[in-house]
């Protein structure tokens, strides 16, 4: 087995507000293998987008990376200088931010927006080579090379989203993070975009982190899934194992809140609301909503433990009280 391409160790990203620190990402550790599709799922406000911005070192004050390591191919991103980090972005790790397709420049042609990133990262290509590179990346996201000469308003939502994917892979990074890449798209287009991303992972060996709240989309498009709750990771597993045998009560509730084809009319919401991450207490943060709480859960934070091969969970009844 090859070494993980990305290793996150005890990452903490806090926002310092006037009322105290908000622990948006707390004690997060996990590995991402080369050429793997990993899903990161959680409700809004659980810190999943903050985590993505953390990996890119794009956290702005009052937020900051408090501590921890982000090892990309053995290099700790948290220790790079601003300029080194700038060169790492797009070249080694790329982000497709939430709503990216609406942030394409409306007065620039697609080809110039793709070239922009490549040139800015110091790649000196001749005009002919640049044209070839642009045609190549468009081709790889299933777009006609003629799209290069178009403006964003001439494209449909799915095509715009694919242009964003093309920009992200234009320098062949090792890791691509996609934050809710299909949230505004119809199911058919959503599936096409996801299939494109999947193909890139398979053909170019890119590792993909897919961020979202749609467990259905995750079941269809990733291999391994990380479940996040209130800034912490609560469960990590291969996707099939996670759906067949969810261990954490939050994951169980999340799965039973979904409509499936098998049982009609049997799906229910998760009672209660997500906790405020301001001055978060000790103990398990899911405790107030948990259907099977124990006394220990209130006082001690459960740690992620491997309770089955490649299946990790942070929950006391599974022995996480170490």
């Amino acid at each position, binding site marked *: 087995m090859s070494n993980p391409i990305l290793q996150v160790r005890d990452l903490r990203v806090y926002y310092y507000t006037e009322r105290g620190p908000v622990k948006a990402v707390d004690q997060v550790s996990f590995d991402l293998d080369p050429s793997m599709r990993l899903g990161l799922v959680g409700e809004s406000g659980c810190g999943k987008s903050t985590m993505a911005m953390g990996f890119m070192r794009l956290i702005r004050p009052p937020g900051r990376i408090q501590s921890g390591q982000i090892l990309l191919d053995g290099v700790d991103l948290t220790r790079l200088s601003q300029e080194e980090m700038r060169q790492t972005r797009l070249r080694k790790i790329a982000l497709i931010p939430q709503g990216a397709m609406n942030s394409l420049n409306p007065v620039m042609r697609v080809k110039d927006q793709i070239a922009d990133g490549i040139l800015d990262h110091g790649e000196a290509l001749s005009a002919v080579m640049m044209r070839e590179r642009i045609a190549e990346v468009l081709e790889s996201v299933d777009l006609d090379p003629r799209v290069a000469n178009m403006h964003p308003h001439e494209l449909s939502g799915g095509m715009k989203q694919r242009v964003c994917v093309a920009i992200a892979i234009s320098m062949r990074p090792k890791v691509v993070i996609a934050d809710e890449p299909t949230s505004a798209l119809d199911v058919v287009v959503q599936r096409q975009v996801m299939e494109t991303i999947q193909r890139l992972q398979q053909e170019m060996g890119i590792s993909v982190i897919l961020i979202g709240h749609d467990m259905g989309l995750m079941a269809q498009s990733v291999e391994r899934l990380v479940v996040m709750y209130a800034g912490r990771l609560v469960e990590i597993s291969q996707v099939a194992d996670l759906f067949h045998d969810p261990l954490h009560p939050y994951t169980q509730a*999340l799965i039973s809140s979904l409509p499936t084809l098998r049982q009609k009319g049997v799906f229910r*919401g998760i009672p209660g609301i997500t906790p405020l991450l301001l001055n978060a207490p000790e103990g398990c943060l899911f405790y107030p909503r948990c259907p099977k709480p124990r006394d220990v859960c209130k006082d001690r934070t459960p740690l992620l433990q491997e309770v089955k091969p490649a299946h990790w969970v942070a929950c006391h009844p599974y022995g996480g009280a170490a």
Partner: protein
Amino acid sequence: MTAILELRNATKIYSSGLINKRVTVALDQVTFAIEGENPMITAIAGESGSGKTTMGMLMLGFLEPTDGHIFYDGRDLWKSSKEEWIRFRREVQAIFQDPFEVYNPFYKVDHVLTVPIEKFKLANSKQEARSKMEEALEAVGLRPGETLGRYPHQLSGGQRQRITVARALLLNPRVIIADEPVSMVDASLRATILESLRKLNREMHIPIMYITHDLATAYHICQNIIVLYRGSVAEAGDVDLIIREPQHPYTQLLVGSIPWPDPDRKWGAGQFMAKGEILGGYGHGCRFAPRCPVAMPVCREQQPPLYRTHGTRAAACYLYKDSPTLEGRDIGRVLNQ
């Protein structure tokens, strides 16, 4: 017995441009009635641009049909008197997609509940108004003490959306039209909101039109479904039949793309025009023909009628031309009533 709300050949055409007029048929001759006898939940499904919101707007009286008629209690809505309009506005209620834009951030959330009470003079005293509000909130599973007196930013998206359901309920409506009520809410909270809609339908006998692009939730809460493609009805009927065995190639594509939360049930292998999506105009034929994998020459010449392929379903596709055509294109005939 007359239907509560009826669309008869309702058509909406938008035109734009002064010199080169461009015409978009947003909804093409839809005939359909909401009965009050056995109130059902009916989904109007389709992708963006399918005309589902236009259909909702027509039913809400926000848009006037370009052609055809809308009847409320058997009377032409657009020929109604002022009093009839006021009654219509109270009895046909809407729930919209965005639980953020409905609220004015400077007012407490109570505002969205007190305004309709005042406008429609639903209460004679402050206490009566208060108890009506509490009753409506409880009906959608909210605790009044935790909701009233708060500002919108203090509540979650799910809570805010449930307050808009409570607002609709407050007016004691005869029909509710919900346009994408859960698409902006977290997946884990959708179930709760949909459950409160289902409760309104079952316990208060209110027929609901559920406008959505999400077939998975439509399958769960609805009895009937109408699938629109570019303004015309592709398929309609019993939701179980249609989701389990879609007949129209477009519905097959849609159903095949539902991301079911089940790793054992993967997206189908069917590839439908991933490259080069077709944008813009269409000729006389079936609107799906340019993307259809089984299109025949006839599909490009003439728009297919609705064929009644089963007692409770119809599909607008020449594959089913051996079935009888649906009388008067009236979708109501194949819906569960």
